[in-house]
């Protein structure tokens, strides 16, 4: 089964190979670590990194090309009634109030970050950002309305947290005031839900 040559090499090569392997590992041992301590230190992202989508409603013309291009149906056009006014968190003062337009909304849990919507957009309104920390506890938290797409993720989380606090406060008020005026307060808090539901 084993030739003369094989028998001769039987013991020697494994040792040589072992020593070579050990030299390699020792060289790696002396090199610096290539990983970084993530939350505190980060590697710089590549310039063309595709993170969460961003939408500039001011230049979006509502053509719907992005919806056509989206391979997963993560992005779809919704009718968006501009409700924002100057000084609000969202919205664009340049737009006439009450105008009905079409803009994309994105389910970021469905998005594959392929970049096609960015590619087809005639005005460059929809773009990928460097936001990548998108893990959430609840599936409902993955849908981004057009106006929410206009805010980067850390800021958006802040806004959501503030709203939640407000909602909790309103809930408390409602309980204190018994029924009566409670319904009104509820409506005030849930801005924009009608458009999302459409």
């Amino acid at each position, binding site marked *: 089964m084993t030739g003369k040559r094989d028998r001769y090499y039987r013991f020697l090569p494994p040792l040589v190979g072992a020593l070579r392997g050990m030299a390699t590992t020792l060289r*790696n041992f002396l090199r610096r*670590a290539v990983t970084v301590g993530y939350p505190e230190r980060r590697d710089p992202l590549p310039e063309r990194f595709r993170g969460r989508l961003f939408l500039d409603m001011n230049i979006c013309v509502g053509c719907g090309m992005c919806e056509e291009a989206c391979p997963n149906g993560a992005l779809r056009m919704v009718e968006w009634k501009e409700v924002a006014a100057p000084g609000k968190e969202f919205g664009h003062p340049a737009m006439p109030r009450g105008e009905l337009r079409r803009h994309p909304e994105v389910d970021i849990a469905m998005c594959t970050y392929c970049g096609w919507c960015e590619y087809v957009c005639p005005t460059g309104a929809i773009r990928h950002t460097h936001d990548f920390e998108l893990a959430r506890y609840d599936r409902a938290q993955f849908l981004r309305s057009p106006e929410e797409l206009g805010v980067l993720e850390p800021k958006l989380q802040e806004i959501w947290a503030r709203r939640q606090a407000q909602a909790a406060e309103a809930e408390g008020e409602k309980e204190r005031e018994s029924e009566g005026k409670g319904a009104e307060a509820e409506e005030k808090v849930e801005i924009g839900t009608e458009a999302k539901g459409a």
Partner: protein
Amino acid sequence: MSWTQVGIYIGGSLGVFLVFFTAGGVLTYVFRKLFADFGQRWGPNRAGPFGLFQFIADGFKLIFKEDIIPERAERWGFRIAPYLTFVPAVVALSPIPFGEGLLLTDVRDGLILIFALAALAPLGEILAGWASNNKYSLIGGLRAAAMDVAYEIPLLISAIAVIMLAGSANTREIVLAQRGLWYAALQPLGLFIFLVAMIGKIGVIPFDLAEAESELVAGYVTEYSGMRFGFFFVALFANVFFTAALAVTLYLGGWQGPFLPGIVWFAIKSAALMFLVFWVWNSLPRVRIDQFLDINWKVLFPLSLVNLLYTAILVEVIG
């Protein structure tokens, strides 16, 4: 034996046990850090400064984990097996001189005692493999038995060469006999055989066939969880420490060295050997079981006999 002597002995035993246990624990941390360095990673860096308390966190985790005994397992054997691997290794450490006067059990033939105790540990592995009532455990246990017989013989024969040189099986006398020249210089072949067989005894990666996770899930520890698994794990690292200490005693002049106190020299030498073990562990792929038996029976065993002959001639020549 007076009561003070008994007290000193019990205190010393507890001391050795503590050294052993913490060495096992700290070594898991060192092991993980070194592994990370070999892989160009950071390793544990969350628990405490530089992740230093990682092994304490691991210990707590293991203690609080659910302790599962398989329904059809041999309960008594399953329970006793972890201690059978752990305790002999602790006791085997007591005849090893850590420093000039730091020798707990100065029996006349300490080396024989050490090897007798060290040979008990595989019994625990075999028992664990049998008692788990699991095919992977059983194969792992049988492999442990086959490996034990294979590595123990070259290990012992190379140690016998050292006994011939020193003219004594007393560990302290062996160290003192190396005052001028370490036996590593007189016994390069013996040292090589000892190191290879020693890695087989520890049972780490080139020779971790009794665990072989890609073949046997985890070998004889497959069914173990919680602190029972912890005992096997600590026993593994304690074995790294024990075998390194034994090799230092036999070949590297024990505690002896210039300037620094004996215990420091001992620590430096055994740390170097442990680094060597971790280095080999990180560098080499696992051999097959038949290859391991081949290496031990067909290469190391004849080589150790050659070494024995060479030593006999050497002793005659030196006188």
